[in-house]
């Protein structure tokens, strides 16, 4: 007896259609899974058997061969449990082949017969060609995002069999309430920090990578965590792409099944290169940089990350994607993220004031050497963040605290600047092509002079010039100054891109 059940598997963040073929015959009882299953896939045998038995469904002691076609491709994960179980039920004639006409199945089985969620359902649904698809109840939201299939769900194997046989109607999980959006921290909480606030705003508006240097407790992380709130919500295409990745990485999705706010990922500095860029031997899992797709990757204590790990970021920063190659497969993960990093000026952290630093010169030299030049070059915005004045932290009764601008006000300016960028045909100014800068970011004569002087002094490279012009464009967009870029905006862009590790610090 042969049963054929369509399904899908996940490789990286992409789904691939899989046909599960189940053959039962007389002979020595046994159960073999062939077609390059990985360990979790091979264990399906034990889960399926237990699930069928505890659901009171027939399990025949026959020779069973399960083939996962195409057999040359590596299958991973427990999502094939459900199609195997359904195939066995067809083989044991508990289901009729016509019950599953045009239906694909994805899901993991519990030993009690319950149907559990698996990662990457959105991508797998995308790969499925059948018009109907059965997914676990917890994945119903994301499976419905695409809207190309009729999505069905069942909580247990028994419920599924009954629904397939037409003995009961398909149940649908209640559509989740529109929950109030999660409260993001407000920029008004940050006291002082004029430069830091400006840098965060420019970074959000232009998509410019940001490096903050300052002593511990100065408020670098505080500023970084307020950046997602400044970004506009994701467009539907961006939201779809990000949801796919989050689903594949197994990150819990919001209740509606779609990621709508730009993600904020902050891996600890103990992260390995693979965990950042993605990969792995058995499963190709997207890394933190892909999880931050269309969002923010925040690297706190940048200098504590191993240099080799940091340098893996260089290619994705340029290309917005990373290609991970392994012996068995190579996968491209999208990774278009805004890099925000924070670090101390020196190992003791007090290097902002020359007399406060306790570090030896060689220790400072080693510390600055941990950030490679090419990586440092990719930060368009590099600013110091110093501890705020005591007066700003503890306002006295007499002088009411000067209220700082809230996230709402700044986000409105950011949104306006992003609209201007999209009129130029890019998502944000950081993506302006270099060859179009003369047209899209022309310079006033005064601004030209400033840049020319810098270039002549050898303090600005050709690439640096492009980066400075893009940041200046963002500055003028934020200020509502349309037209050629003025001197102040160019100066601002130059100051916002200072070198945190000058070759010879004269006084410190």
């Amino acid at each position, binding site marked *: 007896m042969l049963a054929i059940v369509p399904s899908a598997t996940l490789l990286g963040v992409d789904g691939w259609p899989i046909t599960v073929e189940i053959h039962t015959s007389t002979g020595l009882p046994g159960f073999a899974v062939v077609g390059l299953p990985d360990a979790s896939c091979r264990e399906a045998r034990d889960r399926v058997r237990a699930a069928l038995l505890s659901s009171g469904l027939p399990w025949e002691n026959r020779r069973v061969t399960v083939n996962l076609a195409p057999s040359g491709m590596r299958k991973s994960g427990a999502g094939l449990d459900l199609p195997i179980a359904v195939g066995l039920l067809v083989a044991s004639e508990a289901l009729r082949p016509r019950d599953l006409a045009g239906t694909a199945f994805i899901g993991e089985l519990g030993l009690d017969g319950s149907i559990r969620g698996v990662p990457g359902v959105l991508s797998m649904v995308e790969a499925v060609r059948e018009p109907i698809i059965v997914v676990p109840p917890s994945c119903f939201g994301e499976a419905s995002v695409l809207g190309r299939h009729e999505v069905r769900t069942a909580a247990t194997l028994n419920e599924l069999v009954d629904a397939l046989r037409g003995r009961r109607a398909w149940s649908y999980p209640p559509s989740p309430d529109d929950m109030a959006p999660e409260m993001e921290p407000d920029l008004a909480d940050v006291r*002082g*920090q*004029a*430069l*830091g606030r*400006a840098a965060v705003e420019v970074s959000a508006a232009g998509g410019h990578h940001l490096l903050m*240097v*300052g002593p511990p407790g100065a408020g670098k992380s505080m500023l970084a965590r307020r950046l997602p709130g400044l970004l506009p919500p994701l467009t539907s295409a961006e939201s779809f792409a990000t949801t796919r990745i989050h689903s594949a990485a197994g990150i819990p999705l919001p209740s509606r099944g779609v990621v709508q706010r730009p993600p904020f990922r902050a891996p600890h500095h103990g992260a390995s290169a693979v965990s950042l860029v993605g990969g792995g031997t058995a499963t190709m899992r997207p890394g933190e940089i892909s999880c931050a797709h269309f969002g923010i990757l925040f690297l706190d204590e940048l200098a504590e990350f191993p240099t080799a790990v940091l340098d893996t970021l260089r290619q994705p920063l340029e290309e917005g994607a990373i290609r991970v190659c392994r012996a068995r497969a190579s996968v491209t993960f999208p990774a278009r993220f805004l890099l925000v990093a924070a670090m101390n000026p*020196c190992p003791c952290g*007090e*290097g*902002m*004031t*020359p*007399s*406060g*630093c*306790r*570090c*030896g*010169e*060689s220790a400072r*030299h080693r510390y600055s050497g941990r950030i490679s030049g090419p990586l440092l070059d990719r930060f368009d915005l*590099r*600013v*110091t*963040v*110093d*501890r*705020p*004045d*005591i007066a700003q932290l503890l306002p006295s009764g007499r002088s009411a605290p000067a209220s700082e601008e809230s996230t709402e006000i700044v986000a409105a300016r950011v949104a306006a600047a992003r609209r201007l960028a999209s009129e130029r045909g890019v998502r944000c100014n950081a993506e302006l092509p270099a060859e179009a800068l003369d047209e899209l970011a022309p310079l006033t004569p005064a601004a030209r002079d*400033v840049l020319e*002087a810098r270039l002549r002094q050898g303090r600005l490279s050709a690439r640096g010039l492009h980066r400075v012009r893009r940041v200046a464009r963002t*500055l003028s967009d934020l*200020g509502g100054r349309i037209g050629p870029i003025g*001197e*102040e*905006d160019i*100066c*601002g*862009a*130059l*100051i*916002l891109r*200072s*070198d*945190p*590790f*000058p070759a*010879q*610090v*004269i*006084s*410190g």
Partner: protein
Amino acid sequence: MTPALGLPQEAYAWALSDLPGISPVRLVALLRQDPPEAAWGRVLRGEVVRPAPSPQTRVMGARPTWADVAARRDLGRGWAAIRSAGIGVTYLGCAGLAATLSEDPEPPGVLFWLGDLTALDRPCVAIVGTRHCTGYGRAVAIELGRDLAECGICVVSGLALGIDGAAHVGALAAGGAGPLGVAASGVDMPYPRRHADLWRRVVAAGAVISETAPGRPAQAWRFPARNRLIAALARAVVVVESHASGGSMLTVAAAAERGIDVLAVPGPITSASSAGTNQLLHEGLTPVRHAGDVLAALGDLRPWPPPSRPTRCSGPASGSGGSRGSEATRHSGPPMTGVVSTERPARPARPAEGLRLEPAVRQVLSAIDRTSTATSVIADRTGLPIGPLSSVLLHLETLGLIRSQGMWWERCPEP
């Protein structure tokens, strides 16, 4: 035997100093006995015996005698290379060797130099200290180096990492008297490599001298010997930061033997980098608070700081960052060659007055300390938006009133 080549005495002095394993004492003894050419002749004739290796050294293979080495040496070519590299040579008994050195109890046998040795004609002050300095030590070394160089003092130091290098950086920044670097390696062999650029700048502004033959790297025993040379050259030795033991303490001991004034910069009693200097102060040495204290030790009793300049702790005490001098301008004019001049030169008008700066520009200028001030601090102090602030900062930099060190700014002495 090599025929007579018509080479100058200096060439033979170089050749003698380059003999393998010759000690400074041996070299001095040779040169006290004969002029270099005659001494070289004695070496060639085998009359000067190479000392037996110490029992600790393992000798691999046959050890050539000095006569063998000397016979194989191509003096003419080697000398031409030294000449073309612009390296100067002088030796004990030659008029070119500074009197302070030739009269020293442990004089150098042969001395090589790159740059302009007239730096030595000025009064010399050695600024020494640990290689593992703190930010405080570095800032003080730079300040002392800068202020002393501005007063026409030749700052002598060892070009090492840490305090030594910082003292040179400060002296170079002043643009006054050129500094003197005393090296343990050959003068054409920058060490440490990280200071190769500093080395070049010291050569350009002042001079680098060494007892080691050109082309030879520094051996460990050369460093204490170099320190005694620093002490011998200086009229006063300032220790900025030193651990309880270390090279700076050897310099101090060498200076004490010669009766040269030693001064020390006080540091936190909790800092290991200041343990040595604090110990020296406890023993009764003069503490250094600023360059004026060093000048006083040399007999120059001018008031310090110069009246046009704020003290380190003056200025409106607002903001979080300590000092903020509002009138940080310094005297310029021709560098004074003699220290013992009690007359102060007439000071030119402050540049800020001459330029009629706008209020915003003044505001930014007054928010910048003499020591480095972060851009973020300037932004918070002035309250200016980033665009206008940046424009003012770059404008002030173009005028030469401030200079940038990456994300930090500091006031300049007048250009």
